[in-house]
């Protein structure tokens, strides 16, 4: 079994879904012959034909709207948005239709679609190519939001998203696309969408993160273990909405300390949601204030300053120290 990168794992999962389920259709800009600007769909049109892998005109609202119509008619469209900075024109269709068709029709019609988009900064990309906007989608009822942080989880979570009977927005951290490789058995096995993943066990503090920031978060945990004999539990949120609070609560119940790390701006970011919920449900177990380490409340800067914007290992470590010795 060859090792694959995260973007290759996405490709594997898409191929598997196309092979296993005739209802699955991919659509998006440049996903056909070109194989996607990140190569996530490389080779798929050649293998499955242009009726399964469709290039679309350049229009994101259209992509979302087409997917809704296709899904309601029994297909399983997996739509690609080229960068999360261009996902905003889909919001109207996603919140006003994708997320509500089931409830508005009392289950008569539903929208089993996936909207995939690369997400996040750190690859020296041009303006608008480095945004993290998962919290906008997490606020939408009736929509699942998922973000993997490793090739294995990309494969399993994407299969789960495609099989899910409801709309899923699936963010892929561009910074991790080619960062490292894992053995990913192409076994068609989905991973659950209703649980977090504990990537590292520990008893001194809990670090919660998702997507690319898990890279720095795990590094911080390793550093703390090696240099200060501090054992940090690291939780990958995986599915960002609806959130599996049980896993986090259980962990915080043991550690009494929580740091949340995300790249998106702080205000009304998803870290706020987790901090608020955990503080409400576990206030008396907390030994220190919950700290959020996040992007600042500024526009994601052009790339010369992008690393000034993104949470660094230094910042995460400092937060860890703060909760350890409040």
């Amino acid at each position, binding site marked *: 079994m060859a090792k694959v990168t995260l973007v290759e794992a996405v490709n594997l999962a898409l191929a598997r879904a196309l092979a296993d389920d005739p209802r699955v*259709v991919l659509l998006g800009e440049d996903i056909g012959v070109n194989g996607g600007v990140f190569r996530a769909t490389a080779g798929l049109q050649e293998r499955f034909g242009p*009726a399964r892998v*469709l290039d*679309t*005109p350049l*229009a994101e*609202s*259209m992509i*979302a*709207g*087409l*997917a*809704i*119509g*296709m*899904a*309601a*008619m*029994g*297909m399983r*469209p997996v739509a690609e948005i080229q960068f999360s900075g261009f996902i905003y024109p889909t919001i*109207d*269709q996603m919140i*006003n*239709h994708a997320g509500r*068709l*089931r*409830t*508005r*029709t*009392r*289950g*008569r*019609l*539903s929208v089993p679609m996936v909207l995939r988009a690369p997400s996040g900064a750190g690859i020296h990309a041009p303006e608008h190519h480095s945004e993290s906007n998962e919290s906008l989608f997490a606020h939408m*009822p*009736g929509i*699942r939001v998922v973000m993997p942080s490793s090739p294995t989880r990309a494969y399993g979570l994407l299969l789960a998203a495609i099989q899910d*009977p*409801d709309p899923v927005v699936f963010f892929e951290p561009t910074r991790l696309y080619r960062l490292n490789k894992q053995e990913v058995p192409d076994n068609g096995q989905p991973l659950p969408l*209703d649980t977090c993943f504990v990537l590292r066990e520990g008893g001194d503090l809990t670090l919660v993160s998702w997507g690319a920031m898990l890279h720095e978060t795990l590094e911080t945990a390793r550093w703390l273990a090696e240099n200060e004999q501090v054992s940090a539990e690291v939780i990958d949120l995986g599915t960002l909405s*609806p*959130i*599996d*609070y*049980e896993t986090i609560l259980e962990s915080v119940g043991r550690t009494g300390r929580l740091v949340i790390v995300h790249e998106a701006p702080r205000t009304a970011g998803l870290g706020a949601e987790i901090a608020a919920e955990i503080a409400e449900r576990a206030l008396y177990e907390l030994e220190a204030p919950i700290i959020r380490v996040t992007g600042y409340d500024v526009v994601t800067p052009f790339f010369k300053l992008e690393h000034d914007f993104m949470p660094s290992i230094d910042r995460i470590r400092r937060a860890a120290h703060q909760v350890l010795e409040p």
Partner: protein
Amino acid sequence: MSVTTTARFEIKYRSYLTPEGRLTGTPPAIASDPDLLKRLYRMMVLVRIFDSKAIALQRTGQLGTYASCLGHEATHVAIGAAMAPEDVFFPMYREYGTQLWRGVHMEEILAFWGGDERGTTFRDQPLDFPWAVPIATQTLHAAGAALAFKLRGEKRVAVTVIGDGGTSQGDFYESLNAAGVYQLPAVFVIANNQWAISVPLKAQTACETLAQKAIAAGLPGLQVDGNDVLAVHEAVSEALEKARGGGGASVIEALTYRLSDHTTADDARRYRSATEVEDAQKKEPIGRLRRLLVARQLWSDQDEEALVQDCQRQVDVAVQSYQAYGRPACSDMFDYTFAELPESLRAQREAALAEGPARG
């Protein structure tokens, strides 16, 4: 050559049944199908009686805001009559004529405007989309459905209706463009009733016709007299046939007039003249079809009386069913959000149920 002409287009207009109820030109085949003409007439009358009842319900506090279809009956009913059962309809919010023809129930329409999601369950019409209040969004769903039909090789057509105002939305344009690129089995009907709430057509677009918007997507565009049920029926039937045969999508602009307020929450006297409405009244669709039927001795005063009575009875029965809906279960709010209730919603659901029904 330094200057050449690379493309030419024209927009045609069709109308057969004059306001006086006379046929002109070469009317389509249904002009000689008395049964169909009478079925169309009956449905148009039913819709109108339903419509005025709905307004009455709203005025007496028994219904929420309601969007009347007064004046649009020919366009709406003709679409329904032209479609095949396996086709799928993507309405905006006032096409009751199409919906009733296709098996949506009057009490479902009332329930929708009565603030109850059960109104969109369409128990005898499982595939049609519910009303789309966000203007123009439904046209993309129609294109998506048509794409599904095409990819699966099904001989089905997606039909959608949009208003004159709606044609200003980017979604409308994007849906036409998709329909052109993918040669989709779709029919886009623009119900041009001259007004988008208070905005008249000339403040909506600098176009001479709305049919010409099709040109921007490489689609054929046609104007028809939207108060002429024969013209609309013919145009939609032809477009359906073309689409079903793999010939791609069409845009049909049906010229009609919104004789009522925009909705019961609106007061059209604020922005348009009584004269304009009176003029439009003279061209309304039901009278002209009745005049044709009467002239051909297919319809009598007794027929009319019996029809009106029958429609009123049907509407009354529907109102009773609507009133029997009662309150939806509070739990419904949660139970259809996802196929399966996520853990995090379970607690919210329990808390909500514990509240008991809210005042308000």
